[in-house]
């Protein structure tokens, strides 16, 4: 996927001016935020679980090579195939080759962010294979030629009436006078249209929420059951996952599953949690004849041992997006690449370079709400600051900020001069404010006064008043 992260500022401005988008985004706080709060409050051991989850992933990241190899052995023992993809291009090639080897024409897909990251749909289309997204949100986004704007709610940037219009446009074989006003009727229609696609698909591709090393199992969680149909009905199932999805045991997967749904949607558990180990065995009633796992690195192993390693604990619940006031203001597409919100602001520079995605870790007030709700206790603000440090070292920080900072630091190191100048500034702004007590525009402060007044200083600085007071006893 081509990145537009460099244009974050103008992307954001456009998003703020898009009334349809703003209407859709206004549902994020009441929906996700309140539900998560309720679910967390209802589980007394939720905070302990977060510690456990963090520890499990930290342990895995310290021994990732061992667990990956153990996982690979178990998959092969169960009759599956494991493919190692160092880059997105490798993953595209491997998956395309498997599809071509089976003469696949259509491929159904479960929801997978890693597939977005690796550009699998585009690669399949280039090879003449039709990918069909089966998650309702992904299906809508695909029909619009868009990308998902949220980790778990790909179409959260859309309103029901927009989706209805898309269904009428694309499902043009259905009666024009059908009633589609209720969300339930949209779901019913999508389900009917997709049913035949499941049956016709040659191959099913899913992501994986977890890969279990002790059993060689891939796990997906969904609320629609589309993932199950995607991986069980076609003859071949390909699970595409990034290497940090590994957990040591079934018990560990259970711990993380308890955190995932509560943090994501406020559910105790997702409607479907599906464990896949190898292809169909003798006597199995269903399941694929072939089971492939594609393990994608794409820059992640380079994060290990750096100040960004903790980011690899992320389980993609979306809680940081939901709670982020910047995400709530601009939505996911403004971030310009696959991942958005606080997790995207940390992960994207790791994957496509800080030169390209440098805006993202800067577009934060460090309000800390993301870290407060992250089930894996990832210190997101701290890592955004680490990116800013890298940018500063590489001279990528905006020139105006850099020179402003230089002047400020120079004064700060010279207290007497600093106090004289701050005293003058206080007097100057107060004089400009006059009887009003505030100014509506000020030289060099356009960023501030474009949208708000600047309250006037009281006139004297605290230091000046304090000095007088000490003198007069």
């Amino acid at each position, binding site marked *: 996927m081509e990145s537009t992260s460099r244009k974050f*500022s103008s992307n*954001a*401005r456009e998003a*703020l001016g898009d009334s349809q988008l703003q209407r859709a985004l206004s549902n994020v706080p009441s929906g996700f935020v309140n539900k998560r709060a309720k679910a967390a409050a209802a589980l007394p051991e939720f905070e302990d679980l977060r510690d456990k989850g963090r520890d499990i992933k930290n342990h895995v990241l310290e021994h990732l090579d061992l667990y990956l190899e153990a996982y690979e052995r178990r998959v092969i023992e169960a009759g599956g195939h494991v493919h190692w993809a160092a880059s997105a291009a490798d993953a595209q090639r491997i998956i395309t080759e498997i599809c071509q080897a089976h003469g696949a024409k259509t491929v159904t897909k479960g929801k997978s962010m890693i597939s977005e990251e690796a550009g699998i749909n585009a690669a399949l289309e280039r090879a003449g294979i039709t990918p069909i997204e089966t998650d309702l949100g992904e299906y809508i986004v695909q029909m619009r030629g868009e990308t998902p704007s949220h980790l778990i709610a790909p179409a959260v940037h859309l309103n029901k009436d927009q989706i209805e219009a898309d269904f009428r446009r694309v499902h043009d074989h259905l009666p024009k006078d059908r009633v589609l006003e209720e969300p339930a009727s949209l779901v019913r229609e999508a389900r009917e249209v997709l049913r035949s696609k499941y049956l016709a698909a040659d191959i099913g591709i899913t992501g994986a929420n977890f890969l279990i090393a002790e059993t060689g199992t891939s796990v997906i969680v969904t609320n629609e059951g589309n993932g199950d149909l995607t991986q069980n009905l076609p003859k071949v199932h390909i699970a595409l996952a990034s290497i940090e999805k590994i957990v040591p045991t079934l018990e560990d997967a259970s711990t993380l599953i308890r955190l995932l749904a509560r943090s994501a949607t406020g559910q105790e558990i997702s409607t479907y949690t599906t464990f896949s180990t190898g292809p169909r065995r003798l006597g199995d009633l269903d399941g694929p004849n072939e089971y492939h796992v594609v393990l994608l690195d794409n820059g992640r192993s380079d994060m290990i041992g750096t100040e960004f390693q903790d980011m690899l604990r992320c389980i993609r619940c979306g809680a940081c997006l939901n709670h982020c*006031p*910047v995400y709530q*203001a*601009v939505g996911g597409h403004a971030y310009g690449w696959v991942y958005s919100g606080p997790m995207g602001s940390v992960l994207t520079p790791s994957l496509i370079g800080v030169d390209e995605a440098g805006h993202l870790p*800067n*577009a*934060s*007030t*460090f*309000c*800390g*709400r993301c*870290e*407060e709700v992250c089930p894996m206790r990832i210190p997101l603000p701290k890592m955004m*600051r680490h*990116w*800013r*440090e*890298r*940018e*500063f070292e590489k001279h990528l*920080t905006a020139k105006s*900020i*850099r020179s402003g*900072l230089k002047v400020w*630091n120079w*004064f*700060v*190191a010279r*207290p*007497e001069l600093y*106090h004289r100048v*701050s005293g003058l500034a*206080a007097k100057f702004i107060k004089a400009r404010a006059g*009887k*009003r*007590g*505030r100014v*509506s525009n000020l030289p060099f*402060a356009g*960023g*501030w006064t*474009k*949208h*708000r*007044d*600047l*309250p006037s*200083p*009281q006139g004297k*600085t*605290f*230091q*000046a*008043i*304090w000095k007088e007071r000490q003198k007069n006893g």
Partner: protein
Amino acid sequence: MSEKRKPRVGLFVTCLVDTFRPSVGLATVKLLELAGCKVEVPEKQTCCAQPAFNSGDSKSTRKIATNVIKMFEQYDYVVVPSGSCAAMIKIHYPELFTEGSGFRTRADELADKTYELVSFLSDVMKLKDTGAQFGRKVTYHDSCSGLRELKIHKQPRALLSKVDGLHLEEMADADVCCGFGGTFCVKYPDISNDMVTKKAANVTNSGAEVLLAGDLGCLLNIAGKLQREGSEIEIRHIAEVLAGETHIPAIGETDQ
């Protein structure tokens, strides 16, 4: 309590209070003295280094922090009328120095005795009632650093509940960022504006006559927005109300 045994408090006044609203500093001194402290103000203090720190300029940050540590380590306590500057010293200064180094130890020691004003009055000096009077309906904005880095939530509400005549009306999303964020508000003015617009609406919808908070950065931001929109809501730092210093004009207002 004899003069000798009074804790010596170094007041870190913050650059914004120093330049924009010295009355907050004076109210802070009054409250600290009421709580039984002896207050001193190192005259060479300037900035806590947040602008450098949040812009990724580690070298300048360390330099400024080193000066602050040297200037303030002599006191029993360091008190700051701001959650974000207090958190800078209390949480982030130690992170700046390598574990085991001399300055790390000194940063750790300073961090241990540094407090945001209201939490210091409540948690350390066990002050329950400041004896102030303010017969108004107020709402309180939790600034992000104070709330999430320093866990300040109950303390301001407890002290406000003892102010004679004051009625606290909680606003929706009191814990959501106002969009100030230091340099953020000028780097991304449109996003900042969206955030402060939502905050101003929540303040207005609370029905309160007065907005209080513990950080002048947030207050200048929200005041600037409310007043640009023509709102009549009065905006003050919580220290002014707790100290009974509400006769002076509120933020962005004059007595003329």
